[in-house]
């Protein structure tokens, strides 16, 4: 089973991704973000985004009730259904779901995190938390019946409330609990870059040791990303690829070897296993 994480940037070529996925034989699950759509909507609605940074350098969006409404409109609504629509137009019988639906992604609301604000150390509680369990039987039921799950936030917490959560953590958890063989992360960059501003600084292979080194030196959101990448490796996925989601054929190019191969198993030829003549449109 393949897990495809589609970044939430405006430059991601969703149509190209859907066209490529239509050619895969192996079943797959999509997890996607929508930060660009959310930021655009927040701006048009005049809602400001508060980012808080924990005392040890992790920064993230403060999720108040307005922010959860935005998640529901931008992630669960607009982005999720446009991806489902594109999949349907390429012979993929997609079903879009959030972590709330069927208690698909169950998590725990954060007890309170220490942040530095105005020279004080404060506990910040909001509507966000960590994913802990996946309703794998719902995913299995859908995939056995020929559907492709397309997942996004919000997730559901212990009080059955909608909370925000980091898509990278969700990806690692889904990978582990579904035993994904390949995890493909499509982002708005050629792959993992030593220096995001320098296109030639692409790193073709990243071993687990590399990741831990980088994590020590990084800060804020990059630190989060590396932390999640390490956990993704620990999830047991045989191959992890980070590739450019803006290309004409993002998925096929990634399987051809473009982008960054993460983990020890970077020589594996992914093309043969997955490339297939176009799959006939599956009817509902």
């Amino acid at each position, binding site marked *: 089973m393949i897990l495809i994480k589609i970044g939430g940037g405006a430059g991601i070529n969703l149509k190209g991704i859907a066209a490529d996925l239509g050619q895969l034989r192996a079943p797959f699950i999509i997890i996607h973000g929508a930060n660009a759509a959310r930021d655009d909507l927040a701006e048009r609605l005049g809602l400001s985004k508060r980012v808080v940074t924990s005392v040890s350098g992790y920064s*993230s969006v403060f*999720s108040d009730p307005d922010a959860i409404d935005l998640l529901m409109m931008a992630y669960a609504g607009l982005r999720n259904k446009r991806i489902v629509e594109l999949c349907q137009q390429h012979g993929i019988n997609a079903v879009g779901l959030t972590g709330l639906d069927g208690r698909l992604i169950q998590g725990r609301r*954060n007890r309170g995190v220490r942040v530095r604000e105005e020279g004080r150390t*404060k*506990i910040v509680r909001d509507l966000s*938390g960590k994913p802990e369990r996946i309703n794998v039987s719902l995913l299995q039921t859908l995939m056995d019946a020929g559907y492709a799950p397309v997942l996004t936030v919000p997730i559901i917490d212990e009080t059955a409330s909608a*909370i925000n*959560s980091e898509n990278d953590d969700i990806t690692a958890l889904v990978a582990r609990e579904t035993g994904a063989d390949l995890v493909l992360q499509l982002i708005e960059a050629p792959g993992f870059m030593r220096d995001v501003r320098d296109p030639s600084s692409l790193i073709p292979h990243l071993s687990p040791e590399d990741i831990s080194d980088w994590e020590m030196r990084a800060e804020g959101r990059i630190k989060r990303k590396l932390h999640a990448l390490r956990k993704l490796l620990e999830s047991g996925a045989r191959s992890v690829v980070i590739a450019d989601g803006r290309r004409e054929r993002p998925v096929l190019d990634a399987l051809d070897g473009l982008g960054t191969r993460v983990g020890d198993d970077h020589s594996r030829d992914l093309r043969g296993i997955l490339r297939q003549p176009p799959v006939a449109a599956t009817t509902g």
Partner: protein
Amino acid sequence: MIAVGTAACPVCDSPVSLAADLTESEIIRCPDCGSELEVRSMEPAELVEAPVEEEDWGQ
């Protein structure tokens, strides 16, 4: 430090004096047992043990 009142430390029960400019959800340390406490509310003054959360929490 101008104290505006005291509240009992939830861990060792000794009185903890609260500074005037203290704000809700701020973290302070009990001078006696050294526990990290959170200011749950100022009126009435209430202290609870500060939660310990794994660092990289929600998005």
